[in-house]
């Protein structure tokens, strides 16, 4: 399952790195505490969070996440998008809650 598939199924808006949607999604992680996310998420995860400030990019880059989904209408600032672009981390936005996004991805992964 790749990012393009998720964008289509969850109707996500792509805020950064449209050219990297072929990236494979291995799993997911939900978290707003950066120490929790860096310690417990995995390489290839799509990270679902309410945090939209620029520091999320370093966490996703260090853990080599497939991408970041900003839930519940959180909008990334220009500084976040600049960093994401530089590190090649796709960023998506959605009005859905973290719970809904995680549930949908979980069920898509298990029916693939």
């Amino acid at each position: 399952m790749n990012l393009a598939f998720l964008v289509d199924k969850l109707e996500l808006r792509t805020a950064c790195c449209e050219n990297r949607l072929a990236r494979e999604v291995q799993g997911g992680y939900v978290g707003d505490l950066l120490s929790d996310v860096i310690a417990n998420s995995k390489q290839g995860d799509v990270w679902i969070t309410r945090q939209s400030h620029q520091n999320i990019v370093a966490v996703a880059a260090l853990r080599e996440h497939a991408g970041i989904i900003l839930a519940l209408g959180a909008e990334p600032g220009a500084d976040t998008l600049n960093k994401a672009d530089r590190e090649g981390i796709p960023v998506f936005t959605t009005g859905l809650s973290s719970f809904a996004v995680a549930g949908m991805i979980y069920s898509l992964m298990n029916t693939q």
Partner: protein
Amino acid sequence: MDWAYQSSFSIEGGNFENAGKASIEIKKILKNLKISDEILRRTAIVVYESELNIISYADQGVINLSVTGDKILISVDDVGPGIEDIELAMQEGYSTATDRIREMGFGAGMGLLNIKNCSDELQIFSEVNKGTHLSIIINRMERES
């Protein structure tokens, strides 16, 4: 001793704009040195948490990275308020972070514990109103579990 790599990174306290920059650079260097994924993961977490501790709490600091054939040595020195009670600071959930830091999702009281969990050896020395020193060793030979 034969160093495969050695370098220092200066970190400015309070500068959240550059938070993670040194960690990303260090990870790229280690990747080029063909460090295994699991050791890379643990080192990245140690360096990131150390970097964020300096930015969140200290005035300034330095992260020294040395890679030898069998070890990754990380030493962190900062000039800052120091840690009053190291045992308390090691407890999950304990944090002296300000609201501003917490709003960004930092200051969850997990940083030092993450460092400890990812290290094979960790020593912490701190003096109140002077600063904190961390000495970390990660063995390049992967541990069990």
